[in-house]
């Protein structure tokens, strides 16, 4: 409840406006409920909804309009032959969807995208948490270590992929290093191992993101909590498990969500690492959509693919969002 002075003034003004009888009834009630509708907090009453306009307009232009256009394109036979008058391209209904589901590697691509993202996520989570816990307490050189941890995160994806591609090429530095200890892995950038290459590079590039969010979670742990658990004689593991981790749940749930979406959407990494046409083991969703659109010029089919994958990915996401209650802020208690 707001304690702002301005709404305390309001009843007086109302009284002056000749609404005294009602006011007296209100006054008879218990203090907290005085004022009924008029007693809403300032932030709600004068909530500046107009502030949504700039963001909302941008959302409509760069997300809603393209989304609708994309859905429209997905029912057209839109390719290089019809592009010129694309609004009047032949309407073919669900044909693109049928082709995407039955005669294209779409489902394979969805499977690859989701599984690679999950794998990368499962590995980066403990890595990030461990790094955050390790750098939580001050020690000499902590600032340097923390800065170094962020390097993969601040490097552009293109740079990361180019450097890794150079290191992983046949006879490259990675092969040579492994050969000195007698390990010969084979090809990194072609064939079945590409999937694991993609996972590996993705892990390298994205664990600092988990680390960052875990760190922010750790820093929200009150000092008193540490003290209290110390007084109770909790050992480090128990302290971590029952005291600290609960604080991390929110930030990490968020990190998981954003990370998954980022991995599934990651075009630069596989594109630069493997090129197109990509080896079938890394023909992930963004690559497939790109090739369909810009190498085969099947814009309609590609839009249908994108739409199907959106739906396929949105369903588990929705379930996840409900499960971790990231939208807690919308419950009435948090309303302000």
């Amino acid at each position, binding site marked *: 409840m707001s304690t702002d002075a301005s709404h305390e003034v309001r009843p007086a003004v109302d009284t002056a406006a000749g609404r005294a009888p009602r006011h007296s009834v209100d006054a008879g009630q218990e203090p907290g409920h005085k004022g009924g509708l008029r007693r809403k907090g300032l932030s709600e009453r004068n909530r500046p909804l107009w502030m949504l306009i700039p963001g909302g307009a941008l959302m409509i*232009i*760069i*997300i809603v*309009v*393209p*989304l609708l*256009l*994309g859905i429209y*394109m997905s029912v057209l036979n839109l*390719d*290089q*032959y*019809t*592009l*010129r008058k*694309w609004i009047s391209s032949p309407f073919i209904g669900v044909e693109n969807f049928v082709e995407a589901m039955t005669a294209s590697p779409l489902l394979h691509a969805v499977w690859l995208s989701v599984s690679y993202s999950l794998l990368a996520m499962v590995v980066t989570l403990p890595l990030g948490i461990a790094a955050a816990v390790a750098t939580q307490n001050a020690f000499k050189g902590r600032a340097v270590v923390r800065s170094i941890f962020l390097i993969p995160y601040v490097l552009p994806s293109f740079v990361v992929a180019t450097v890794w591609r150079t290191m992983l*090429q*046949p*006879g*490259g530095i990675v092969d040579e290093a492994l050969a000195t200890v007698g390990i010969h892995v*084979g*090809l990194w*950038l*072609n*064939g*079945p191992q590409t999937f694991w290459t993609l996972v590996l590079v993705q892990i390298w590039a994205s664990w600092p993101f988990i680390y960052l969010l875990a760190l922010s979670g750790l820093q929200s742990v009150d000092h008193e909590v540490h003290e209290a658990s110390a007084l109770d004689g909790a050992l480090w593991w128990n302290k971590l498990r029952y005291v600290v981790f609960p604080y991390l749940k929110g930030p990490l749930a968020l990190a998981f969500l954003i990370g998954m*979406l980022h991995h*599934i*959407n990651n*075009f630069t990494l596989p594109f630069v690492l493997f*090129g*197109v*046409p*990509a*080896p*079938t083991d890394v023909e992930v*969703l*963004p*690559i*497939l*959509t*790109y*090739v*369909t*659109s*810009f*190498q*085969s*010029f099947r*814009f309609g089919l*590609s*839009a249908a*693919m*994108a739409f199907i*994958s*959106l739906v396929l*990915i*949105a369903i588990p996401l929705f379930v996840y969002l409900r499960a971790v209650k990231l939208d807690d802020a919308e419950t009435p208690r948090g309303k302000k």
Partner: protein
Amino acid sequence: MRFKSTTGLAAIVTAAALALTGCGSGGSGGSGGSTNADGKVDGAGKTLNVLTGVLSQYPEQQKQWQSDIAAKFKAETGADVKFETFASANDELTRIQTSVVSGQGPDVYGLGTTFTPTAYATKAFVTLSDDDWKAVGGKDRFNQAALGISGPDKDHLAGIPFVSRPFVMAYNKDLLAAAGIDKPATSWDELAAQAKKMTSGDTYGIATGYKDNYDPWKFIWAMAVQAGNPLVDGNKLKMDDPTVKKAYETYFGWLTKDKVVDPASVGWSNSNAVAAFASGKAGYLMMTTSSSIPTLDKSAVAGKYEYTLMPTTAPGETQSKSDGDAASILSGDNLVVADYSKQKDLAFAYIKLITSKDEQLNYQKIFGDLPANAEALASLTDPKLKPLADAAAKSKATPFTGAGGDIQLGLLNVTVQSVPDLAAGKVDDSALDQRIKDAQTKGQASLDRASKG
């Protein structure tokens, strides 16, 4: 759903961009120049927009050339030229799509030859009439071979040849002489045999990159054409023909059977192959162009290498079965004029200027690309350019169809998916069959759409 915007919805985003640019107004314009009594186009006060690829090897020279040409064009017609450049094929494609949909943009486009069929398929560019050809100086002024990929047939041409960039091979004279070879191979079988003689230790007979994004399909196409299979026959794709399989076997065989290429080349692109040849560790450098001259002239093989035609006799054959030698894909740049352009006469005048003999020779001198102007091409005397000029005259056009992109992709994909087998030293026969079959199915579907479109 915020993630939506970046999911592989490239298509959608493009559409939005197209729609938005479509709403934009303006663009330079004017209702086109008028032609004076003396046949000169009067373009005073107008601006011609030209979109062309950036020459990353010669950035300064390109700017200089553009300002020189703009000055000459101004002197001739009174109009200005405004150049825009694209940095990558992707960039180019985006610009073309935007312009095609919105009906506005550059007046003249410079396109890679293999992209011309796709551009033609959009019907957004001028198919030149007889008068149009006259306006650019006549069809006869061009190297006739270079017109091969300007349109589906000789009466429907949209691409005006600007430069040729034929593919040749380079050979290391010292290595060939040391192996007792007196002249470079003219058949693929001979090439492999010679390469074997030159291979020893860390020196290999052939340098090529199996992971290049373009080279592999050019080899397969060339060998197939030389064996009498031009891949596309009417509306039928003939990728499942034995000649295609034979081509793959030969190309992969250099590594798996003949062992005449560096095993590391499974991960090489063309530039790695150039580097290997430049270090003097390879007898032949396959599938290269005049653009390798600057690199090679500064390397260990400077003065020791020469260009020559790639073999024109298919593997297992004794003579070429194609209709005329196919030494290279028809490669280079074409110019196309946008159908929506309101100043086509100015555009033609510009093309006439830059395809004139003098300008073409000047361009060759600065950038190394061969003239498309027949007279200019014939006047080249530098012996190093001789094999390149030969290759330009003996270049053969790849199939002119909107499905060309998919066919290339299919051919290339067979190599990409075979690379792990290559690295292991053996390409499984049934796996290769299956990959070729997939490429055939997809390519044929694309060809079917092309015939309807």
